[in-house]
């Protein structure tokens, strides 16, 4: 077996193993020199991203890839002597998982490139990079696993690493306060998830997601488990009634880490969709749960944007916009869920709404990552996040300004940027479902634009301020990191259709098609 074959065969395991191994060897490599450490971290990230792309290519070209740990063959999910029960830990990478893997690989690489120079003035970078790689491990694990207890373990790895990285620059205690808030909520959420796992295990004797889905009865206990999971995962992705940690955590984390926290939240969003679509699907009352998700989404959109408008801190403002944009994804996918049982409505608009919501996950990761990186570049150069103290930076930070404009227009849904492509799909399909929600979504977009015009004006416009006269453009690695994301924002905005056909439609299909997921693991149909 050649090296390439080895990588291709074991890609799902390597996706988690490589960053995990590198994270714990960083302190040793860091003893050699700072350059060796940077090379080690960057090499790890590029290798992981390459593995993710290889895996995604395989999934999109040949269908779901499963990987069983410790089995005779990687795809032998059900051992011959086990009586039809998948007993081993399994990774099930279907199109939706591969879609999330691609997002994590792209954002992870650009953010790491950016942080090589944005963090270079700080001390104790070994710990920072170790936590960063653990976050990568957590996200890849959460989106790839096919075992529900494994999902909980990766959720906890991600929470612990995120809390550590939020608190990393203690900042007079403020960062620790934000991290504490985030972490207590995360832990309570994780306990709810573990309760739900216990409920499933008690009823179905299985931890495998496909097995649970196949045996799902939707008894009273399953309803309780569903409530636990929806509450915990909606909290982790920052939907409105439980969004309080988001602005604190996003604004106090180091800027580079904030951009990746967006992806971390979306991994929880993925978990939410996986639970409602793959585990429950048609056994539950899709309309009711769909409406709950839609209402969460609409509340997030409206409350997020109205809270964003009065903010003075640039990262806090962007964090509230992140809450608001999460609402769009919940709205789109919620509409898809609400009409799931009805074939006519699904083909009329339900599937398109799901595509719009899922496409928005990708686009949001790109433009929101880009915006947080530009905010970080500004903070790196002038040392404040207060909008009232900024001004006239357009004279000196020209490239940062251009990247900010690209990100701001994309988040407001202005063509030809990628935010427009996914929002248009959401508007069109949601209008057919219920016109009021489409109108609310458009109004929220307009308010988003208004808010970003204000930020743009107060940061970049106006005369050059004397205290910022010698401010320079952000360093090159930071510009490259932002440039990658900006290029994707423009590219996906100009050519949305190929992306929808190649990536988004298979992902939406994988979510909606519960039977396909079960069959790919357990065999048969």
């Amino acid at each position, binding site marked *: 077996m050649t090296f390439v074959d080895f990588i291709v065969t074991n890609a799902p395991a390597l996706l988690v193993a490589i960053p995990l191994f590198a994270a714990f060897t960083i302190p040793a490599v860091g003893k050699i020199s700072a350059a060796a450490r940077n090379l080690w971290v960057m090499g790890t990230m590029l290798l992981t991203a390459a593995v993710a792309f290889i895996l995604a290519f395989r999934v999109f070209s040949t269908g779901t890839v499963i990987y069983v740990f410790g089995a005779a063959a990687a795809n032998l999910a059900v051992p011959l002597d086990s009586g039809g029960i998948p007993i081993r830990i399994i990774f099930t990478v279907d199109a939706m998982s591969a879609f999330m893997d691609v997002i994590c690989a792209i954002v992870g690489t650009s953010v790491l490139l950016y942080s090589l120079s944005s963090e270079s003035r700080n001390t104790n970078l070994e710990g920072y990079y170790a936590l960063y790689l653990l976050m990568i491990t957590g996200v890849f694990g959460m989106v790839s696993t096919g075992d529900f*207890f494994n999902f909980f373990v990766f959720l906890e790895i991600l929470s612990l690493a995120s809390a550590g990285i939020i608190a990393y620059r203690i900042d007079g205690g*403020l960062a620790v306060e934000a991290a504490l808030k985030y972490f207590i909520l995360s832990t*309570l959420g994780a306990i709810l998830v*573990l309760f739900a796992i216990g409920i499933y*295990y008690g009823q179905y004797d299985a*931890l495998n997601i496909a097995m649970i889905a196949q045996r799902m009865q939707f008894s009273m206990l399953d309803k309780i488990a569903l409530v636990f999971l929806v509450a915990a995962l909606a909290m982790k992705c920052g939907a409105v009634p439980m969004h309080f940690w988001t602005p604190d955590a996003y604004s106090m984390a180091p800027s580079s880490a904030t951009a990746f926290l967006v992806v971390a939240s979306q991994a929880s969003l993925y978990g939410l969709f996986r639970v409602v679509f793959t585990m429950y699907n048609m056994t539950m009352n899709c309309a009711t749960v769909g409406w709950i998700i839609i209402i969460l989404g609409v509340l997030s959109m409206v409350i997020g944007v109205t809270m964003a408008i*009065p903010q003075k801190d640039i990262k806090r403002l962007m964090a509230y916009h992140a809450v608001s944009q999460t609402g769009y994804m919940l709205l789109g996918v919620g509409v898809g869920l609400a009409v799931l049982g009805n074939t006519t409505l699904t083909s009329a608009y339900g599937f398109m709404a799901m595509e719009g919501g899922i496409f928005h996950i990708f686009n949001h990761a790109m433009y929101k990552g880009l915006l947080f990186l530009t905010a970080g570049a500004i903070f790196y150069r002038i040392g404040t996040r207060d909008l009232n103290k900024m001004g006239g930076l357009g004279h000196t930070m020209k490239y940062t300004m251009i990247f900010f404009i690209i990100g701001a227009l994309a988040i407001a849904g202005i063509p030809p940027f990628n935010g427009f492509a996914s929002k248009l799909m959401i508007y069109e399909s949601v209008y057919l479902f219920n016109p009021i929600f489409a109108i609310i979504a458009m109004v929220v977009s307009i308010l988003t634009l208004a808010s970003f015009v204000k930020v743009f004006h107060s940061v970049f416009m106006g005369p050059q301020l004397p205290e910022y006269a010698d401010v320079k453009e952000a360093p090159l690695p930071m510009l490259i990191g932002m440039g990658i994301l900006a290029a994707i924002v423009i590219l996906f905005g100009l050519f949305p259709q190929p992306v929808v056909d190649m990536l988004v439609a298979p992902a939406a299909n994988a979510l909606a098609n519960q039977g396909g997921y079960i069959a790919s693991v357990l065999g048969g149909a």
Partner: protein
Amino acid sequence: MLWNLPFITVVVLTFIGIVTVLMKKNIIKILLGINILESAVNLFLVSLGYREGGVAPIFTLAPSELMVLPTPQALTLTSIVIGVATSALVLSFAMVLKKKYGTVDINEIRRLQG
């Protein structure tokens, strides 16, 4: 009734844990509340796998009798390890906050607003 005793204990522990987390203002006490909740989940998992009269699930030289389920015990072990990491992180946060703010009362740890 006696058979359900572990599950009744789980409910009682969960209730105590939730009340502690919601009502107490001291970070250390909130952490203790979280630990009680974790114990409740662990007890829940272990009770699920218990079979009356079963032996420990070790196959070597085992008498061919009923065994308790090994999987929930493995889950509980993992969950305990995660719980230790959680406690360590929250305690270190409490230490830093005590140093910087001079208090571990969450009513006074409110400098992030808006």
